[in-house]
């Protein structure tokens, strides 16, 4: 028996969420006294995974696998899970890993739990804690299959270095043409995505118009943060839908979330609840966000945010 972790990469490079999920899987494998195997597809830096503790790394290479396609990736990982007798398959919560998980579950006849927020509470039966009701509650779920799959929430465990002398096995793999053909990919170049970000700076209606977004942009760039917005802002077309965070938008699980001019409707708070530290800047001291935040400033965004940006820049350079 073994634990299998899928080490996702983007254009050949691992992301922080990959190191986090390998670290998580290492601790789980230790508790189960099983070997940890990491699967890596078309990575240019496979050896870096050994900093996080796998016993064995299997790398698959084929230029046709440069882009993620569901059928090929799913069959590679399910075949590996079968041949390595995986009792548990651990994935991250990136868009691609969450795309993959249900398909793996059918291939492996496995129980599946997403949004897992901590190391399992118990291994017999396998009981995991996951967030539900869009971060308004948790549940303890028992997974009952011989093989089970979990998707670990971003930033819920952290990256833990654990150098290992992992054996690296390279496998050539035949690839079929996927039924779904990728026509194009548009990535906002340079910008940090909400899913990957440690810090998210978010703006609401309090900013009065899209022309004032430089306030959010400047603060985000000073912090190396991703930008987000509230639902009304994306509905009015001030900002793209991809920046909308909340119950029907993107969930945020960053270490720091700064909300500027967002009142804090229950649907918005649900989407950002998984963030560790929340800061609110709003001129209305009665705004519901103050009840959900850790730190707050009552004040006008147009006055406070530029000062905050400047002070942060000075702090960072000192």
């Amino acid at each position: 028996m073994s634990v299998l972790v899928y080490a996702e990469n983007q254009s050949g490079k691992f992301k922080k969420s990959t190191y986090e999920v390998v670290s998580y899987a290492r601790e789980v494998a230790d508790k189960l006294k099983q070997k940890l195997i990491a699967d890596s597809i078309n990575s240019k830096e496979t050896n870096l995974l050994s900093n996080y503790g796998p016993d064995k790394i299997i790398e698959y290479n084929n230029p046709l696998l440069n882009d993620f396609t569901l059928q090929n990736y799913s069959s590679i990982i399910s075949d590996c899970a079968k041949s390595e007798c995986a009792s548990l398959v651990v994935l991250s919560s990136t868009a691609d890993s969450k795309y993959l998980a249900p398909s793996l579950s059918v291939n492996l006849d496995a129980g599946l739990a997403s949004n897992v927020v901590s190391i399992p509470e118990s291994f017999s039966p396998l009981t995991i804690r996951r967030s539900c009701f869009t971060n308004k509650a948790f549940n303890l779920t028992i997974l009952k299959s011989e093989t089970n799959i979990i998707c670990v929430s971003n930033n819920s465990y952290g990256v833990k270095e654990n150098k290992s002398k992992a054996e690296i096995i390279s496998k050539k793999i035949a690839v079929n043409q996927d039924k779904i053909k990728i026509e194009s990919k548009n990535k906002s170049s340079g910008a940090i995505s909400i899913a990957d970000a440690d810090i998210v700076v978010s703006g609401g209606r309090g900013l009065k118009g899209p022309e004032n977004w430089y306030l959010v942009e400047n603060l985000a760039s000073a912090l190396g943060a991703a930008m987000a917005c509230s639902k009304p802002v994306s509905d009015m077309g001030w900002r793209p839908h991809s920046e909308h965070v909340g119950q029907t938008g993107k969930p945020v699980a960053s270490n720091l979330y700064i909300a500027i001019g967002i009142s804090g409707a229950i649907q918005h708070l649900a989407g950002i609840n998984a963030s560790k530290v929340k800061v609110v800047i709003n001129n209305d001291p009665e705004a519901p966000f103050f009840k959900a935040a850790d730190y707050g400033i009552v004040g006008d965004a147009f006055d406070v945010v530029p000062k905050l940006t400047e002070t942060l820049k000075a702090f960072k350079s000192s």
Partner: protein
Amino acid sequence: MNILVCISIVPDTTSKIKFTQDQKKFDINGIQFIINPNDEFGLTRAIWLQQKHQANVDIVTVGLSSCEPILRKCLAIGANKAIRIDTDPLDGFAVAKELKELCSKEKYDLIIGGRESIDYNGGMVPGMLAQMLQMPFVTNCISLEVKDDFVITKREIDGGIETTSCSLPLVIAGQKGLVEETDLIIPNMRGIMQARQKPLEVIPSIKSVSKSEIHKFEELPPKKSVKLVDKDNIDQLIELLHSEAKVI
């Protein structure tokens, strides 16, 4: 074209989430139920295809008779037929199995679900159903254009958008973007009257077996009260974020 929209019925987005005293079940006292928002975007998109391409739109849910008012609402929005698979849903896998059974009997060209339900947030039923049916699948779908049996879709990926194409049949998991919030259809009186005459079929469950079960729920721990910083003392905020919260 024959379309199936899979509907999950969830508590209203403003609901206060409470559980029964033994923490085993969601407390439905005083809760209003709605169509899962991600599913409603898909339903609206399906109705557009019905209007433009004369597609047939069936909707399905796995649930008990308490679901029927919401199914009638979907009919009032414009679906042709509602199907209720008569069982209390156990987990995502069991629901997908029930839907697979339906889809093996009735041939659908396009099956639309939502990215996730806003209650259990499993995000698994459409993907499992696609794999069980060996059909291609696009998740986080924010655009869907159909020409004959050829489909162009857009999927939200981390930090961008991926455009893909494929032939029908196809399963998608939709979200906002598929249609806009302002496009959602509010049933009018005519729709509501027509919905009463439309078929609502109840079919027996195949009693599919679950692979997981919820042992118990936990409410969020109480929140510490906010630390307010004076707007003229920004340095203090940075100090707190650095030394106390350790996030910068």
